[in-house]
């Protein structure tokens, strides 16, 4: 019969793979376990550096951590009472039921795996295990203060909050637009989320993936209009956006929504592409979401910048945008066109057609004034360096004035930011 300690170890390792455990128990475990622990240790050192300073303690992560800490310390009775307390709070929490089952079964016989129920369906156990791992990871890997997601370069003043989703971490971060501090993103809270069954980077209808990109909330669908599947509410987002469509991406109906009534949480990968929160978490963020305004940026793996680097990147982009504006006002069409990529494409025009049209229009102007108000700049997640720029354009000239909400996609080419798409938003 395996020793009690190895039993506990097995549980903790299967579950948490936590570096802490590695340090404490490594000498006692076999090679395989030690290797897996070492791997997690490495991952930690390479990724933890850039995460945001604060992680909210609102979800069950604190309690899960308490439970696994108790298990590590072989305080199984404490672990069980903590688990039971968690279940009183969330009676439908399947992960907690599984841990409870393990802790009880461990009293009846030695167990050597997470989810030790006989005949346990492997896929369901794997789902719960995955949830435990991402929740604990999100909690344990507390990064340094003063780091912000790279994507939130500039929010427009009336955007009070921004949502950033990290699909690999199954995490949603809520940031506030700290207008008093020059529009610096201020961390508010973070939440566990579910993504598509087959992961992220949606490409076509029905691929069961969550899209990657810069979106915003387009509607607020109240619970009473929804099927139980969507839980306490839903907030559709504007996938596919202009950039997605230009790149041939399809599908629709990507929402942020809640959880059906028969479970507290869904596995990390379970939706058809939507981003799913627990009902309590959806309720918590719902009051901060503004229809038509709140950005929802979904990344496979959020990049974090120190506030210094963030400010530098933002200044650089703001400067590029303002140069574009000034060069437009200069009526020197060559200077103006230098801001556009040769790969520019919009409204059926390629760069050549666009350039020809601009030369013709500008030739007839005696003066041009361009104002950009309510500017927002969000970096598009992914390897390509693309930012999404949105503003109210107030254009006046000797023979035409016009106001519009404009959206541009800028891409860095050979070190310079160039416009590759523009159109009304």
């Amino acid at each position: 019969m395996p020793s009690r300690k190895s039993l506990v170890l097995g549980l903790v390792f299967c579950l948490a793979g936590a570096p802490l455990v590695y340090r404490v128990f490594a000498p006692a475990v076999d090679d395989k376990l030690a290797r897996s622990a070492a791997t997690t240790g490495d991952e930690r050192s390479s990724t933890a550096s850039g995460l945001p300073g604060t992680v909210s303690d609102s979800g069950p992560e604190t309690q899960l951590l308490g439970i696994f800490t108790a298990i590590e310390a072989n305080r199984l009775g404490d672990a069980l009472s903590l688990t039971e307390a968690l279940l009183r709070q969330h009676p439908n929490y399947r992960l907690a039921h599984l841990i409870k089952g393990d802790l009880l079964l461990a009293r009846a016989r030695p167990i050597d795996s997470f989810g030790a129920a006989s005949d346990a369906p492997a896929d369901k156990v794997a789902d719960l295990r995955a949830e435990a791992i991402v929740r604990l990871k999100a909690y344990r890997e507390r990064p340094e203060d003063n780091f912000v997601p790279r994507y939130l370069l500039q929010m427009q003043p009336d955007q009070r909050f921004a949502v950033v989703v990290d699909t690999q971490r199954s995490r949603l971060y809520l940031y506030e637009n700290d207008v008093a501090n020059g529009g610096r993103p201020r961390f508010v809270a973070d939440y566990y989320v579910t993504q598509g069954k087959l992961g992220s980077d949606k490409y076509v209808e029905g691929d069961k993936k969550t899209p990657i990109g810069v979106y915003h909330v387009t509607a607020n669908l109240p619970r009473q209009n929804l099927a139980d599947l969507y839980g306490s509410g839903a907030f559709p987002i504007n996938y596919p956006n202009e950039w997605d469509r230009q790149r041939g991406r399809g599908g629709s109906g990507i929402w942020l929504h809640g959880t059906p009534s028969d479970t507290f949480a869904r596995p990390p990968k379970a939706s058809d592409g939507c981003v799913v929160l627990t009902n309590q978490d959806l309720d918590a963020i719902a009051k901060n979401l503004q229809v038509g305004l709140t950005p929802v940026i979904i990344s496979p793996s959020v990049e974090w910048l120190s506030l210094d680097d963030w400010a530098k990147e933002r200044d650089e982009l703001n400067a590029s945008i303002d140069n574009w504006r000034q060069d437009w006002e200069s009526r020197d069409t060559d200077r103006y066109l230098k801001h556009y990529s040769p790969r520019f494409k919009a409204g059926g025009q390629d760069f050549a057609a666009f350039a020809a049209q601009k030369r013709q229009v500008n030739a007839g102007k005696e003066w041009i004034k361009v104002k950009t108000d309510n500017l927002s700049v969000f970096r598009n997640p992914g390897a390509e360096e693309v930012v999404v720029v949105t503003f109210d354009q107030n254009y006046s000239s000797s023979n035409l004035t016009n106001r519009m909400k404009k959206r541009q996609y800028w891409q860095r080419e050979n070190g310079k930011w160039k416009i590759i798409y523009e159109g009304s938003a």
Partner: protein
Amino acid sequence: MTITSLAQNRFQQLKTLRALTIGLAIGFAAPVFADNLPDVQRLIKQGQYPQAMDKVDAYLSSRPKDAQGRFLKGLIYTEMNKPTEAIAIFTRLSEDYPELPEPYNNLAVLYAQQRQYDKARTALEMAIRTHPSYAIAYENLGDVYAKLASQAYDKALQLDSANAATQNKLALIRDLITTSGKANVKPAATVVTAPAAIAVPAPVAAAPVKPAVAPTASVVTTTPGAAAQPTPAPAPVPVPPKLVEAKPTPEPTPAPTAKVNAASDDVLKAVNAWANAWERKDMKAYLGAYAADFKTPKGMPRKEWEAERTKRIAGKGGKISVQVDGPEVTMNGDSATVKFRQHYKAPGLSSSASKTMLLVRSGNRWLIKEETAR
């Protein structure tokens, strides 16, 4: 024997009582047994519960507080399948004599029969708190933990094991009193030695203790540590002496299970669960008792066979009784042959037949692969 089946099979199981009734009153009082009590015990043994009840009531009328008498009364209620009354008696007994583990243990057994495993757990933890080396309570607690674990797993994984015959080892014992004769409970042992000795023959004869006790023992070893947190039981990892007469074969059936081992025990459980499911008309559990490759009669398609069985069983009005009489198990690795007399009773029909079943091991379950009747 499963918890579910426990209710139905109680009469067999509780035969054990005989062995234990004696015991009583380890620590307390009653230096002299009133003449009535052995009579009560004898009547219980003979299954004459109303008479036993009359006697014990007469006994208690002059000594309403007497623990032994009340304990026996609780046993009689248990035998008479009146769990509410039995629970009331054992509850009050445990309040009046909190130092006695037996009433707690019996409460736990009754609660477990009603599937109130949380209450059963609390009661057993109390029993262990009063007697940290109370082996039977440990064994029971292990079973209750396993059952609670299974309920938690059901919720975690949306399983439906409640119906299926997956309740393995949940053989909650029906041992109602550990006697001091078992060296387990210390106080005043001497007083009771004699009756205990009387009791011993029965279990000894009938109980070639199944090797299952070995695993059980390991269960118990793990328990104290765990129990140590909720209860301040000192828990010095008592390796329980193998005194739990695990399967005191009821004598009416000519002890076929003479050579019982853990596996054949599981096979028997599977057969009993099958019979129970039939009696309950629980088609899910009944059909679930058959292996996927079960040889249907005349090779008829499985679906058709299931439909026919469902019509015959679930579609039948009135009560069905299915008794497995004198089962003989022959083990052969992962398969087992069971021969028994099947007594079937339903409105308008009763029959007895010799039945042979071939069961195969599937995970931790035994499933019926062939079934023939003569």
